[in-house]
C-alpha cells in the first residue's frame, strides 16, 4: 500500500529499459524462420507423380491439379493453389508420398490484386513428341479457362 506497488512496477520497467532490445527493425532486419515454418508452398514438378492425394487431403479444396498421360506415366501440367482459401494446415505436405510439395520460408505473399494471390505453381505443356493432336487441343483449351 501507499504506492509501494507503483514503485515496484516502475523498478521493473526501468530495469527492462536498460536491458536487451527484444525487437528487430522488420523490413531491414529479418528473423530467421524455423525449418518447419509454414511459409509459401513450393512444388518440385519433377518429383510429383500427379496422384492427387494432396487435392483430396485439402479441407478447403484449395489445390487444382491437371495432368496428362505421357506414355505410361502421368505428367503434371498445371498445379494451382487458391491460396486465399488456404488454412496452412499442412495436410497436403503431410500426405505427399514423394515429398514433392513443401513449405518454404517465404512469408511475403501480399499482392496488389486479388487475382494475383492465386499461386500458379506449375503451368507447362506435356512433352510434345508423345502426345497426339487431340490431347494438345484439350490442354490448350483448359489453359484459357484457367
Amino acid at each position, binding site marked *: *500500500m501507499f*504506492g*509501494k*506497488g*507503483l514503485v*515496484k*512496477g516502475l*523498478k*521493473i*520497467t526501468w530495469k*527492462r529499459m536498460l536491458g536487451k532490445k*527484444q525487437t528487430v527493425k522488420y523490413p531491414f532486419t529479418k528473423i530467421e524462420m*524455423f*525449418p*518447419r*515454418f*509454414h511459409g509459401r508452398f513450393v512444388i518440385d514438378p519433377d518429383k510429383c507423380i500427379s496422384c492427387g492425394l494432396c487435392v483430396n*487431403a*485439402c*479441407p478447403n479444396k484449395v489445390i487444382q491439379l491437371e495432368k496428362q498421360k505421357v506414355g505410361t506415366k502421368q505428367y503434371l501440367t498445371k498445379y494451382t493453389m487458391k491460396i486465399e482459401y488456404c*488454412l*496452412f*494446415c*499442412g*495436410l497436403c505436405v*503431410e500426405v505427399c508420398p514423394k515429398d514433392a510439395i513443401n*513449405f518454404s520460408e517465404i512469408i511475403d505473399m501480399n499482392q496488389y490484386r486479388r487475382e494475383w494471390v492465386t499461386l500458379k505453381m506449375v503451368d507447362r505443356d506435356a512433352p510434345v513428341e508423345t502426345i497426339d493432336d487431340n490431347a494438345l487441343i484439350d490442354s490448350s483449351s483448359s489453359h484459357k479457362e484457367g
Partner: protein
Amino acid sequence: MKTQTQTYSLNLGPQHPSTHGVFRIILELDGEFVVKATPVPGYLHRGIEKLAEARTYTQVIPYTDRMDYLAGMLMNWGYVMSVEKLMSLEIPERAEYIRVIVGELSRIASHMMSVGALGADLGALTAFTYTFRDREYVMDLLEMTSGSRMTFNYMRVGGVVKDFPPEFYPALKHFLSELPGMCDEYDGLLTGNEIFIARTKNIGIITPEMGINYSLSGPTIRGSGVNLDLRKTRPYSIYDRFDFQVPLGENGDCYDRFRLRIEEMRQSGKIIQQALEQIEEGPIMAKVPKIIKPPVGDVYTEIESSKGIYGSYLVSDGSTKPYRIHFRRPSFINLGYLGDLCKGWKLADVIAILGSIDIVLGEVDC
C-alpha cells in the same frame, strides 16, 4: 412524488478494444450503474460445426484451431480425444507426453494473453507489452514444433504429427527457467499495483453457488473457490502422473480470477518440467488406418482448456465424415452469466468483469 433519473442505453462494441474481438454488449445504464446488460455474440460465427460435417475426421482438426486461437493445441486435443475414444485407440506414451507439454505451453500462452489484456483494458498497457513479449517465446517453441504460431494443426487421431525437433529442448528448458521470473514481473506490474487492485478487488463477485448454477468452468469458477479442474478431479490423458496444485481464489472477484491465472502459469511450468523428466523415446503415432472410419455411435469427451471445460460431442454414422459434432466451448458458457453479473456494477467495472472472464470470440461464436 418519487423522482427518478431516466435510464439510457449504451452500445459497447462490436468493435471495441476491450471486448477482445467482435462482441457487443447493450448496456442499460442508470447514471453510471448498469441496470441491464444484454450480450450480443455471433459476429464471428463461421459455422465450424456445420463445416465439419462436410469434412473427413482429419480435415476437421485445422478448424478446431480456429475456435480458441489463443490455445489451439488444447482445441486440437479435445477433438482428437473424442475420435480416439470412439475408435478405442491406445495412444503411445510419448505422444501423450508431447500432448501434455504442448498443451500446457498453449495454456501458458493463453493465460499470458488474458493477464496482459486485462491489464491493458484497465489502462496498464505496459503489462500488456510484457506478457506479449513472453508469449512470443511460447509461440516460438510451438512454431518450431508444429510450423505455425497460432493455428497449429499439430495433433492427429492417434498421436501427433512430428516429434520435437532437437533445438526444442534447450529452448524449452531456457523458457522454463525464465517462467517464474516472468510471472514475478507480472505480479510486480499488476498484482501489487494499487490502481489495479482498486479496479478489480471486490468487483464482479461470482458466488460459488451462482458459478455452479451457470455451469461456469475454468479459472472463472476456480476464482470463486470451487475446486473444479478436470486435470485433477477427473484426470484424462496422463495428468494423474504429475504433481501440481490447483490454485483457487477466495472472493470470486475479478482480482482472484486474474491472480490465479498467474499461479496457473507457474503450475503449468511445473507440469512441463515433470513431463520433460518422465518423457521417454518411442513412437508418436498409434497404428491408425489411413482412412479414419470410427464405428457407429456417439461419444462425449472433455478436457480442461485454458478457459474452462472444453467438451466435444461426436456422432458417427460409420462413414469417413462425422455425422454431427458439437463443441462445448467454455468461453461461450462462461459468457452466459455476463448479463446478470454486470447488473449493479459501474460502467468501468463491466470492462474489468469482461476482461477477467477471459473470452475468446473465435470460441464463443465458433
